[in-house]
């Protein structure tokens, strides 16, 4: 989960590993504050999100590895449509960091909007508007290259 959030955020496995190590180390240092396993997952999501967004803001050059060069992790799972999935990931990785994290928490972690608002410490309406704008942007980008329409039956 931690690695995956960071990977989809940066689209770079090396940065994702670095972030994951930082987060788990911080978990170790804060184990006393963890109340339960459920709390731990929530805590991990929150710290990972904050760490990713902070890192992206402090180092914009690192925040977005050249998408053409970014290696995909070795195939340990199959995408149903590898090319389309890769394009979707690229467009997501190019979004502003706040919107990007909302999408990742929504579609990777399958969190409700309220949960996302709590993790990112933003109002729920902000989550909604970021989500809507991101989806509209994605739709435009993918339709303009015929990705979504390709799947439409005649």
């Amino acid at each position, binding site marked *: 989960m931690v690695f995956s959030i960071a990977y989809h955020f940066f689209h770079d496995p090396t940065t994702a590993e670095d972030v994951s190590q930082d987060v788990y180390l911080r978990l170790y240092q804060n184990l006393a504050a963890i109340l339960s396993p459920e709390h731990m997952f929530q805590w991990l999501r929150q710290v990972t999100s904050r760490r990713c967004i902070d890192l992206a803001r402090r180092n914009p050059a690192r925040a977005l590895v050249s998408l053409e060069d970014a290696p995909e992790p070795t195939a340990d799972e199959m995408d149903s*449509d*590898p*090319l389309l999935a890769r394009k979707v990931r690229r467009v997501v990785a190019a979004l502003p960091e706040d919107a990007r994290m909302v999408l990742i928490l929504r579609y990777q972690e399958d969190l409700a909007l309220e949960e996302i608002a709590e993790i990112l410490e933003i109002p729920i309406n902000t989550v909604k508007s970021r989500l809507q704008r991101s989806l509209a942007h994605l739709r435009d980008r993918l339709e303009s290259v015929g990705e979504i329409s*390709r799947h439409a*039956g*005649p």
Partner: protein
Amino acid sequence: MKTAMVFSQITLASLALSIPAWGQNPRLEISHLDKLASKASEVVDVTLDEPMMKLASKFMAADEDSDDAEARELIKDLKGVYVKSFEFDKEGEYSQADLDAIRSQLTASSWSKVVGVVEKRSGEISEVYMMTEPVNKKVLGIAILVAEPKELTVVNIVGPIDMEKLSSLEGKMGIPKIDLGKEKPAKKPTGGDDAKK
């Protein structure tokens, strides 16, 4: 259905003419086509061997979709499904040698052509091959080759596939139905001179 009957007759005729050969292997070698991916605007590359087929079937079983049930029945004894499909923006992106490397496998062994269409004007080729056991005629696999100026598709299904059931999947599972040119019913007379009589 008349179409199905004719299809069956062609199939049976092909089977009667098929020459049994030793060492029948219904798996085609099509990896040489991978180099076309970089030139294609759209690529579908499916390689499902027996373990992955079992896994897919297991997940289909978990669904209650009746269309999936039909597909599950179709694939239950299959050993593999392999598809390479490329769409190109312009003509000439694949070579005759690419095609010949596939067709040579289909003509030199115990494959039988079930139906083949060559459109001379456009150069389009559409062919369906079947491999069967020499004695009991059990289907060992099928191959479908469609070569158009801007598209190349090879489908290789290994195992006992029922082609009529495969054909009948259209209209289900999100597969659009292709009009096979069934005769339309005659129109009723709408009046005019006849009505005046």
